[in-house]
């Protein structure tokens, strides 16, 4: 590893500015098919449904395993050395988001509405090689921040919507899931267009030990609620509600993801300038 570091530090700038290299600014759009690693949000929905049971005319649906898949966009820089084969690397930032609405209706027509939104920010570094500047095979490491907001309100019988404090469960719950993902990708470059396909796996290199929960936090503590996984304990036995066991943890929003992208490369080979 030490030798590799020395090689990169010593020779990377030289490679970067050598003839026949290509440095390109890239614009990227992609689709992320992601699979949740945990289902704690569904624990909330299911325990809510169970708690109110016969008093509900329509229970909550649960979130599908791939329910948070979404499109994204971003930009970055890519670098290729050599013509026939050589070093390939790149760094890019992407952003994508997804919203899911869910509703449950009580027998008296009071409606519980949840809006779950995730925003995904990725910073990915690719390192690998290319063949003929046509096929790129790369490994990657990606810092990923998933910001989640779970908005829970009641729609009253006349249609009025509230997120106030008339009921404790109402609120805007937030949390962040930070992971370092690793993976690999392969892509085809056709002129200025590059089509990469990659897979990424979350690692446990930035652990929060399950301490981070979806939280409606207020500095003055008039709102300091964890979104419960176990609604019955939260409602009937709040003294024994353990946020580390009974609340929705943000680590459950980690996901394995497959991305397919489309990049436009803006930049020519050094020798062409």
């Amino acid at each position, binding site marked *: 590893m030490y030798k590799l570091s020395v090689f990169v530090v010593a020779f990377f700038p030289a490679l970067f500015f050598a003839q026949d290299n290509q440095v390109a600014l890239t614009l990227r759009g992609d689709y992320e098919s992601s699979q949740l690693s945990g289902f704690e949000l569904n624990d909330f929905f299911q325990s809510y449904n169970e708690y109110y049971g016969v008093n509900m005319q329509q229970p909550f649906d649960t979130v599908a395993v791939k329910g948070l898949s979404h499109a994204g966009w971003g930009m970055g820089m890519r670098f290729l050395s050599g013509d026939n084969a050589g070093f390939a690397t790149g760094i890019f930032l992407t952003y994508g988001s997804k919203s899911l609405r869910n509703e449950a209706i009580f027998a008296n027509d009071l409606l519980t509405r949840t809006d779950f939104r995730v925003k995904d920010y990725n910073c990915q570094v690719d390192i690998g090689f290319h063949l003929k500047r046509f096929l790129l095979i790369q490994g990657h490491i990606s810092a990923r921040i998933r910001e989640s907001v779970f908005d829970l309100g009641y729609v009253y*019988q006349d249609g*009025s919507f509230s997120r106030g404090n008339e009921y404790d469960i109402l609120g805007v719950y937030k949390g962040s899931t930070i992971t370092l993902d690793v993976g690999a990708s392969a892509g085809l470059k056709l002129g200025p267009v590059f089509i990469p396909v990659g897979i990424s796996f979350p690692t446990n290199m930035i652990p929060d030990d399950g301490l981070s929960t979806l939280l409606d936090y207020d500095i003055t503590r008039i709102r300091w609620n964890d979104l419960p996984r176990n609604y019955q304990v939260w409602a009937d036995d709040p003294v024994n509600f353990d946020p580390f066991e009974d609340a929705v943890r943000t680590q459950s929003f980690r996901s394995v993801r497959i991305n397919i992208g489309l990049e436009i490369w803006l930049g020519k080979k050094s020798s062409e300038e």
Partner: protein
Amino acid sequence: MKKSYFLLVAFTLLLTSACKDKQQVYASRMEGVWNIAHEEIVIIHPDGSVEDVSETDNVGVLTLTYEEGDRVFRTYSLTLTNSTFSLSGLPFKADEELKRVFFYNFFCGDIFGCDWVGTIEVNERNRQQWSFIRRLDNPSGADSHRKTTWTLTK
């Protein structure tokens, strides 16, 4: 090549400027004197019927002021017309998502010093609409709810 670097720098600056905390922006924008131009109070019954309690124009004035060093809180003072009721020097804020407003140490019908959380229905530079709902206990078990809607103008 220079063009590419210029584009990258421009994009980075754009991203940085877009990341300004909207909660702070809202707090700054809310500073000043707001006229509570309209107040509507209704009771929502479990059967869906709505009972009008009152509808009044120009019910009072809400003043929000900046306290040195406070990032998201503003100090509110509330004076109601045709009433001796007034509150001053108390904290106010919106949540991070600008979905709710928080009045601390408010008066909630029968409790002084209660905290009141309202839903932001309209969020415009010179016009705000907030609704506050309270649960009215009903011995029969079916709760009614009292909804107060304020429309504020600057």
